[in-house]
């Protein structure tokens, strides 16, 4: 059986997770920030919001993998070997880069 959420649950998730165009987006987080939505919720909705936030905040327990100390050096070395300087795509040779998002 498939599952769907009700309107209130969806609204709570959107309030907690859709950060909008001007949110601070540099870096990771370990918990949901509350300041952005506190002013727009009504009291009836509060309990649900807290519950959804609690569920989401379980994710913050996900382990943070340690970054290998050699990662940067290894990456730069790999690039030098695989595609030395001077082999970048020149603007005039530009091809469609599907990976580039529109925003």
């Amino acid at each position, binding site marked *: *059986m*498939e*599952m*769907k*959420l*009700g309107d209130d*649950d*969806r609204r*709570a*998730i*959107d309030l907690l*997770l*859709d*950060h909008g*165009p*001007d*949110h*601070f*987006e*540099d*870096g*990771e*987080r370990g918990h*949901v920030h509350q300041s952005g939505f506190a002013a727009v919720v009504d009291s009836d909705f509060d*309990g*649900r919001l807290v*519950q*959804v936030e*609690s*569920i*989401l905040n*379980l*994710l913050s*327990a*996900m*382990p*943070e*993998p340690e*970054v*290998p100390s050699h*990662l*940067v050096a290894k*990456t*730069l070395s*790999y690039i030098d070997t*695989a*595609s030395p*300087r001077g082999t*970048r*795509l*020149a*603007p*005039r040779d*530009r091809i469609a*880069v599907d*990976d*580039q*998002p*529109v*925003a």
Partner: protein
Amino acid sequence: MNISSSNSRHAVPSDGKEQWESSGDVASSNDDASATTRPVREGPNGELTDEELLEAYRHGDRSGFNQLVERYQRELYHFLVRFLGDRAAAEDVFQETFLQVHQSADTFDLSRRFRPWLFTIAANKARDLMRSQARRPTNPLQASISSGDEDSGSFIDLMQAEVEMPGEQMEKEELQRVVHATVMSMPEHLREILLLSYFHQFPYKQISDILLIPLGTVKSRLHAAVAHFADRWRIIQENKARLQ
């Protein structure tokens, strides 16, 4: 250091936050980038922005590229490990991602933002790897839970779902293990969108651009991801209680 220049069209706020995404009248071509007006984005501590570093690299400053790799090593590596569930694979994709950045640096439209582009490349390469190696973990419940892209299914009320929160008796390591297992048991596309939204705080619009899916699909997929996570958590807690 204030990077704002005379041809900048927006004031750089003191907190370094971006004021606008892009402008339709900014030339999309990079051939004449020097002749166009483009945004200046200053980092929170006054350091060069991602886009400025990439531009410097395009003009031959190798350190600009090195700084980008260093700047994103932690965040991108974390995303890849959590998405792929494999450190070695994450390292490989990390390298391939920056190789792509290097190769496509001159094609990048500097009026756009670098970070979503980086994650687009990384997510695509990670998905390619998973498909080629059939790394997706099997999940006995996967077929029973909405992918988030359909408009059918039965309702789950998160308030009534009896999602038990971890008590003090649950050790930190145990909690980490269970949450990790729960996330890794999710279908790839639900795990991916949950990571991008929760840990990396991309707005829905940028997730739509990164994953090349409509905004409505971002929402429905994310709702399904949370429902899936909550349901899996509930089942794990119930099984645990039954065994005690």
